[in-house]
């Protein structure tokens, strides 16, 4: 939050989520999302009568219509009646690489040790300094993992969560191919046995995991409605991980800090990871080590 950090170029600015006056997630008018491109293409290609392709494009744009659109008129115009739009902020300045987030997540979801749904990467900054970067699922607004699934096992909720129906997943792993963040983990062997759960296994509560299917970070979707923050956030001793809601514009971490989400992101020039892929992640990073996180192309 130091002033020199705020003096960055406008183009490097974080998108400012503010539920009521500002867009939920800012995009310029000229921004061509994958969704819009496919939607536009669908109308054109339909004429060309390329049967399967147009079918695909139409189904893709229809699916996208259900998701909250990034409009310039705020959440009221998203067409979504959802009361929450979940987001996460990860403050890289404070992460010490203890990986307590990873172990908490694995314990909670009964995962194998290598199923690091939130993986803490050891990275190097421009100045040669080492830093740590936890990576959950980015809950992409335009998730490349969803359209490639042959049996529609991946879907995006109207609260902005990308989830997997493991009972349906056939295990083609084409979504692992599609995800640019390597956020998906397969159950290559029998899952860790879990005691009987109070809820049935479902996309928001994928416990126990299902052998031969894909699993990934779900933002602890089952806890969110009751106002609890995800396990990684509660267990992080450094308060690195904030769980936020773009609708109510609040974010909370595990050590009791609560911030105004839009202000927090703007003041700290938060960035998103690999924006060149057009995925529009719902996870923001606050850097402090000169990282670019591949955000150079982002126009906010």
């Amino acid at each position, binding site marked *: 939050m130091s002033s020199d950090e705020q003096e960055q170029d406008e183009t490097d600015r974080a998108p400012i989520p503010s539920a009521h006056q500002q867009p939920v997630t800012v995009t310029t008018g000229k921004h061509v999302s994958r969704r819009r491109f496919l939607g536009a293409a669908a109308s054109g290609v339909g004429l060309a009568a390329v049967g399967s392709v147009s079918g*695909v494009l139409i189904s*893709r744009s229809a699916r996208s219509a259900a998701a909250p659109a990034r409009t310039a008129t705020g959440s009221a115009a998203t067409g979504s009646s959802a009361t929450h739009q979940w987001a996460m902020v990860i403050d890289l300045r404070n992460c010490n690489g203890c990986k307590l987030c990873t172990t908490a997540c694995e314990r909670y979801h009964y995962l194998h040790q*290598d199923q690091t749904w939130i993986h803490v990467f*050891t990275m190097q900054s421009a100045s040669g300094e080492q830093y740590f970067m936890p990576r959950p699922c980015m809950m992409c607004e335009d998730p490349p993992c969803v*359209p490639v*699934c042959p049996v529609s096992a991946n879907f995006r909720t109207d609260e902005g969560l990308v989830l997997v129906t493991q009972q349906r997943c056939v295990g*083609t792993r084409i979504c*692992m*191919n599609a995800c640019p963040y390597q956020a998906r983990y397969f159950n*290559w062997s029998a899952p860790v046995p879990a005691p009987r759960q109070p809820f049935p296994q479902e996309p928001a509560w994928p416990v126990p995991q299902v052998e031969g299917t894909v699993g990934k970070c779900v933002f602890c979707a089952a806890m969110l409605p009751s106002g609890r923050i995800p396990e990684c956030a509660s267990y992080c001793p450094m308060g690195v991980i904030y769980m936020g809601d773009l609708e109510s514009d609040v974010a909370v971490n595990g050590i009791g800090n609560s911030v105004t989400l839009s202000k927090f992101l703007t003041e700290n020039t938060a960035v998103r990871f690999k924006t060149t892929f057009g995925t529009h992640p719902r996870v923001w990073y606050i850097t402090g080590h000169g990282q670019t996180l591949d955000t150079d192309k982002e126009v906010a």
Partner: protein
Amino acid sequence: MSSHVESLGSAQRAWDPRILEPVEELTDAEEPPPAIEMIRSAAMRPVLFRPKWFWPAVGVLSALLALGFAAWVVQLRTGLGSAGYSDQAFWAIYEANLVTFIGVSYGGAVVSAILRITKTTWRAPLTRIAEATALVTLPIGMLFIIPHLGSSWKLWELIWPPYWNLSSPILWDFFAVSTYLLATCVFFYLPLVADLAIGAERLAQAASSPGRRLLYRAYRLLAGRYDGSLSQRRLLAGAIGLVAIMVIPMAVSVHSVLSFAFASSSRPGYLETIFPVYFVVAALYSGVALVVVVVAAARRLFHLEAFIERRHLVRLGFIMVALGAAYLYLTFTEYLVDSYSNTTGNAAWVYQTILGRYWMPFWFYFVAGGVVPILVFMFRRTRTATGVVTAATLVLAAMWVKRLVIVIPPATEPLVRSPFGPTGALGLGWGTYHFTWVSISITVAMAAAIPLLLLIVFRLVPILPVAEMEELAAAAERATTPTATAAAGPVARLHAGNGAPVGATDHAEVPWGDGDA
């Protein structure tokens, strides 16, 4: 019986392995076509007489198949991890096998469909073998979907519509391959109709056993009411021509769509616009190589030397090498262009493939599948049947390895890495695919299934397309009558072509010998 033995004797005399003429001198259009009787008995011989080695061969191949089945059961019980997969090698051997095995079925499409459409008459004795190879390899390739899926017991979700997501390339694969399988079956069956009618006669003459009687009934059933009348032959020829034309775009679509499953991602090494062409050419290349090997083996094992000569192999070899050169060119293009894009992902992928951790398989492909076949064909001394078969065997191995090189490096590449780390070394490292006995056994079993099923097919149906060869022989005879041979020019050819009862025999002056002479 005795005439049969005689014809066999002359068949063996017709080919002398000590003669090593260069290909140009191998044209022997003036040689009289083998008698119709000889064609019929040679075609039905594998059906009527069981070779001594048949059961031992079936036994060995079935044992391999059983081993693969056992491995598959182990994989079902312990999970896909037992096949060597991990999150950082999520696609590897089964995906490469899927592409390879479906790819080798393309030989049938080339030899049978393309050469049929282009009215290349020398293909005639090879067509049944090529079509059978396609018929057998395609379902085997499709079967790789089962070990590939993490939850293969949910396969029905791909077959049955309720959950279909039409935007998924995997589903397109499924549609394309199923359609192609149907077309391949039809394409195998249509030219078979006339032969089954002919074969039924033979079976009726032969000594009767319960098995033969059953086969006879099957022949009669499948031959329908075919009696060889002109109208029937016309209709059949028209249908075959139509299917031959349809099979080609279908074959192209299958491998294009198969490549989309890889290319429709942002992964360096998969996101390649060259992929559809690259996959189709690779499939044609390896497919012709397999036809060369199968034809050479069938010629030896079933004593077809009188019909399938060395020049057939050499000519197939020329097609193979042309496709191989095209594939080499595409490979060069792909890596060259990508090596210019100096983004971390692409640069690392190209480096690791060519010089880094995957250099050995890559250069194996380059030498065995790229350079050696061309060298073999460059010199007259090596451009022999043995040379061609050796080259084709190498190509088959090299193209399997090449598919591994296409599939594995991008799947093991780390995507999250430090933008400033030394050559992106920090972050996640490269993943590794470990071959395990499970995945190798399943692969070997599926490979063993090809000769096994081919042996069974050749013991059930005439190995030579009798009707087609007879027609060409008849046309050739007409063409060699004094009036027709008076002029070898185009008019005479046209005349001979018109004289032939059914189309597809325009180059009628030679039978399955030398259409392009």
